[in-house]
């Protein structure tokens, strides 16, 4: 008995001391690598040509159906944007079920149902799959395209484009596509307000009836279902889907650059440059190079442990992230090295990206790093298999891209086989620092420093749609042209000094449209120190009003009012002074000549005006007409706003005084257009209006 107690005590003691003596510095070694079992998809084909892949997975009582179209649609470049409307239109009601009923029925079974221009996806619990399939097949065959829905979608698309105009990543993407593929290639088509405007309901219907056909479709059925059940259900719901000849286009050939070019998209008020070093590559899905390129990319810049990230962010702190990618595609793929960097380090960032591209070609990579990357790729491959959708997608890829049948089964074996030498030879084939587009979206002041990277020593300029534009700052200004002389000519152009001096008051009525609402704006000024602005929205009344008189002012909005803060008062008083252009010194403004730049095709003198209060404005005066076309204002807190002026006309009662009737304001919130409806000078305005 005693012995037993003793041994128990000893045991307890042992386990305690075992814990204390654990050497925690020893890192556990991995166990034997698990077998990564890659399930097979079963498949069958309906008489109408629909190819179906079934992956059984009974872990959850749910099932998903997804249809992918294998099409190369003929895209009318003049109607680009059409594809984005198709999906929403397909699920917005059918010939027998209006939108409301359709939504109701989808929600009733707690299902997901979404479509795009390339297919449709539905997911529900297995017990509700009959209803899901009924809705899905109805949408697929009998969608009822309504003009009102398209109108709603187009409006949303236009708002989105407006926001994207000044969005640097969107600008980079547009121009990248144009540079790499050319505007004649479907991958190089750019969507604009105009192309969206051209899309008609008939175009959408035609797309739907042409391309949504079973003989060009792959369907993945995944989840809690057997092959037999899938056969029965798919035949029942999609057997009647009619096949038809689907046209297919042959894509034009794409030319890769032969020398390195520098391509620049100027962006007003940029604080960061977006850099994309890019060119098209020939890398088709399923070819032996794809896996080697994948490993190459992991080392060059695939993630936060890639070289680009470690260099540009960890070592230099120039950016939040820097990455590379090699896109494989059955027509033409693409390489890109990407970073967003502070303005002043734009050229340094380009330099390091180019150096990393050279280094991976010229030096062998470290074997241990390659092994780490292989482990990562292997691990994430296994994690990806947790989703049964992955298996279905693999089966479809094999069929669609005519890949070897055992491509994915051998994937990890092929990853493991990639050698240090493979990485270098692959880099020599696919990494081309000497034949690339160095594309930068950013402040034009940074552009010239990039010349040294260009084989031709020149910076090529583009607008955000990929159209070639002239260099924004090129021409020198003649010695006798000063800010004062430019402004004097401007004053002459809008009616002359006498007319301006004679201005006592100015009453302007303007109209703006925002999301379908007409907004009325009234501005009244009595020089030199009375100002009123009122914004009226129909149905809501006056939503905003500002009045300034002398040294005080009031702002009211939605029934609440307050005094105009002292720091804002100055800017209103400047607007209240109709002769402000005649005496800038009164507002502490110092002017300097910045050069000549183009604004919408017109050469303009650029005059910078800096006030002693910390705000800055840059004005663009047309060399030919002398009129002010553009103004970029930056307030003391750094907020900028760009205003474009057009349509100068004589003002009623102004003795020849002219003012712009077209005004376009661009700010971080988007673009707002304002049309002047009526403008009258020297009309009597009662002082009481400014109280």
């Amino acid at each position: 008995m005693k012995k037993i107690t003793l041994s128990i005590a000893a045991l307890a003691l042992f386990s305690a001391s075992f814990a204390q003596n654990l050497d925690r510095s020893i890192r556990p070694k991995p166990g034997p690598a698990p077998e990564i079992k890659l399930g097979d998809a079963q498949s069958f084909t309906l008489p109408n040509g629909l190819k179906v892949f079934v992956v059984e997975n009974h872990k959850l009582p749910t099932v998903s159906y997804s249809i992918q179209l294998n099409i190369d649609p003929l895209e009318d470049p003049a109607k680009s944007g059409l594809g984005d409307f198709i999906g929403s239109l397909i699920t917005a009601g059918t010939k027998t079920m209006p939108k409301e009923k359709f939504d109701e029925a989808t929600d009733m079974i707690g299902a997901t149902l979404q479509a795009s221009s390339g297919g449709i996806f539905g997911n529900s619990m297995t017990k509700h799959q009959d209803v899901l399939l009924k809705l899905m097949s109805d949408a697929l065959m009998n969608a009822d395209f309504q003009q009102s829905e398209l109108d709603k979608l187009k409006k949303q698309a236009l708002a989105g484009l407006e926001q994207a105009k000044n969005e640097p990543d969107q600008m980079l993407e547009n121009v990248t596509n144009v540079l790499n593929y050319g505007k004649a290639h479907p991958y190089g088509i750019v969507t604009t307000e105009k192309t969206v405007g051209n899309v008609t309901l008939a175009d959408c219907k035609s797309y739907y009836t042409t391309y949504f056909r079973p003989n060009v479709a792959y369907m993945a059925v995944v989840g809690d279902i057997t092959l037999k059940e899938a056969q029965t259900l798919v035949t029942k719901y999609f057997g009647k889907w009619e096949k038809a000849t689907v046209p297919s286009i042959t894509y034009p050939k794409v030319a890769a650059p032969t020398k390195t070019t520098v391509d620049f998209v100027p962006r007003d008020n940029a604080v960061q440059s977006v850099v994309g070093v890019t060119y098209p590559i020939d890398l088709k899905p399923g070819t032996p190079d794809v896996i080697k390129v994948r490993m190459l990319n992991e080392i060059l810049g695939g993630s936060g442990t890639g070289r680009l990230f470690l260099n540009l962010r960890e070592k230099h702190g120039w950016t939040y992230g820097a990455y590379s990618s090699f896109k494989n595609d059955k027509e033409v793929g693409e390489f890109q090295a990407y970073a967003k960097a502070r303005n002043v380090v734009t050229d340094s960032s380009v330099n390091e990206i180019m150096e990393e591209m050279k280094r991976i070609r010229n030096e062998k990579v470290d074997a241990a790093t390659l092994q780490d990357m292989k482990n990562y790729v292997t691990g994430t491959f296994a994690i990806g298999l947790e989703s049964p959708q992955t298996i279905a997608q693999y089966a479809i890829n094999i069929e669609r891209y005519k890949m070897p049948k055992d491509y994915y089964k051998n994937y990890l074996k092929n990853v493991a086989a990639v050698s240090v030498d493979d990485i270098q030879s692959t880099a020599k084939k696919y990494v081309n620092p000497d034949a690339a587009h160095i594309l930068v979206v950013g402040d034009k002041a940074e552009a010239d420093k990039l010349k040294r990277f260009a084989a031709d020593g020149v910076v090529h300029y583009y607008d955000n749609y990929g159209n070639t534009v002239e260099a924004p700052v090129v021409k020198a200004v003649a010695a006798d042209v000063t800010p004062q002389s430019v402004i004097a000519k401007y004053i002459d152009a809008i009616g002359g000094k006498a007319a301006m001096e004679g201005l006592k008051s100015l009453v302007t009525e303007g109209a703006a449209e925002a999301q379908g609402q007409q907004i009325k704006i009234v501005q009244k000024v009595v020089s030199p120190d009375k100002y009123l602005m009122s914004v009226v929205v129909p149905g809501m009344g006056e939503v905003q009003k500002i009045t300034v008189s002398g040294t005080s002012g009031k702002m009211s909005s939605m029934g609440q009012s307050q005094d105009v803060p002292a720091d804002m008062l100055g800017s209103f008083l400047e607007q209240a002074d109709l002769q402000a252009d005649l005496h800038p010194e009164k507002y502490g403004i110092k002017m300097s000549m910045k050069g000549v730049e183009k604004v919408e095709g017109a050469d303009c003198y650029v005059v910078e005006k800096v006030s002693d209060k910390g705000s800055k404005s840059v004005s663009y005066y047309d060399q030919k007409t002398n009129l002010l076309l553009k103004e970029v204002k930056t307030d003391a807190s750094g907020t900028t706003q760009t205003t474009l002026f057009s349509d100068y006309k004589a003002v009623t009662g102004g003795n020849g005084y002219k003012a712009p009737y077209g005004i376009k304001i661009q700010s971080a919130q988007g673009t707002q257009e304002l049309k002047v409806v009526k403008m009258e000078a020297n009309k009597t305005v009662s002082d009481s209006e400014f109280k």
Partner: protein
Amino acid sequence: MKRIILSMSLLASATIGATAQERKINFTEYDLPNGLHVILHEDHTTPIVNVSVMYHVGSKNEDPKRTGFAHFFEHLMFEGTENIGRGEYFKMIQANGGVLNANTSQDRTYYFETMPSNQEELALWMEAERMVHAKIDSTGIETQRKVVKEEKKQSYDNRPYGHLMEVVFQNAYTKHPYNWMPIGSAQYIDQAGYGEFMDFYKTFYVPNNAVLVVAGDIKPEQTKKWIEKYYGGIAKGTKAIPRPTEVEPAIGQEKVAYYYDNVQLPAVIIAYHIPKIGSDDAYALEMLNKLLSNGSSSRFQKEIVDKQQKAVGVGAFNFPLEDNPGLSMMFGIANMGVDYKDMQKSMDAEIEKVRTQPIGAEEFKKLQNQVENDFVNSNSKIAGIAENLATNYAYFKNTNLVNTELAKYQKVTAADLTRVAKKYLNKDNRLIVYYLPKSMEKK
């Protein structure tokens, strides 16, 4: 080749066998003598393993003069340990084929890794390193101060409506530490000293305040041995673990707050005090929120967005909070040119309707179907199951809730929805936040 076919058909028969059974999530659980609660869930479908640790500490455990501390601490916990160098934690997981992350809420902090299953021991060792001797030093503190400030800028300050939650919680709670959000204030983190960090670590990052979950392709007997090896020797915490005791008073009468931000469209948020998560009425209220805003045919969506076009977006949901009172929130973002008060009227009309008119059988059936669908999908991945297991134990000491929760929803009747609407969705129990464009600001 033949062997592959054979093993495939074996696999198929194995999965068919599983169909016949109920789709129950099996697990075993036990406590180590030091108080660490361990939950093991075995599933060999994919050769991966999820290792995660939930520490029962969140922003509600913070000193009001040190808000943001728990979340900041989460960042510090990636800086390294005595045996894992600075910056190596992330790299080590990735170089061994895994992915990792962490997050902090009001109530808990959660760390998780998904790895190939042969790396299970490594992940267990790494989480133990974090628990036993994480490296807390001035370099790490300085680095993470910068990173967290950037995170705050990117995710809150620079994002439209980024301060919405902060404003709601600030006004919905006056006494309870739910008053502030986990991101907290950068200024307080700058003020915190080294001693405070160590004290926080020794108080909350102890085995008796943690749940360890190992889920996936594991052999439980082997897993238990490793857990004993790496966690058995970690000392139990000696400090008392403080939990908030503040009792939040009832709202009493409708409270209104205004906030002005760089947004273009006004938003209205209506928030009600409700019972904490896990209570019967909270389940009913969650269904009520789905009735209002889940799917294109939900009442808010159909009426206010599609028909009246007064809002561009609407929503209603319960915020998952462990303590009483919880919070149910509804929001609307006004359409261009629409008075936000007018949009609020439409929201109020729908709320009044659920308070006064019974819910039809058809619509109720829809709700039940949606609830079932959402519940089923919440357990689709190993990582999701692991978190559900950890949460159910940490909050309710009821790990099996992962299997029984659906029954709690199914118990709710249509009449219950009307009852809870009447009981909680009252004007004297609500906060209204007007989140408006800066241009509407009065000073």
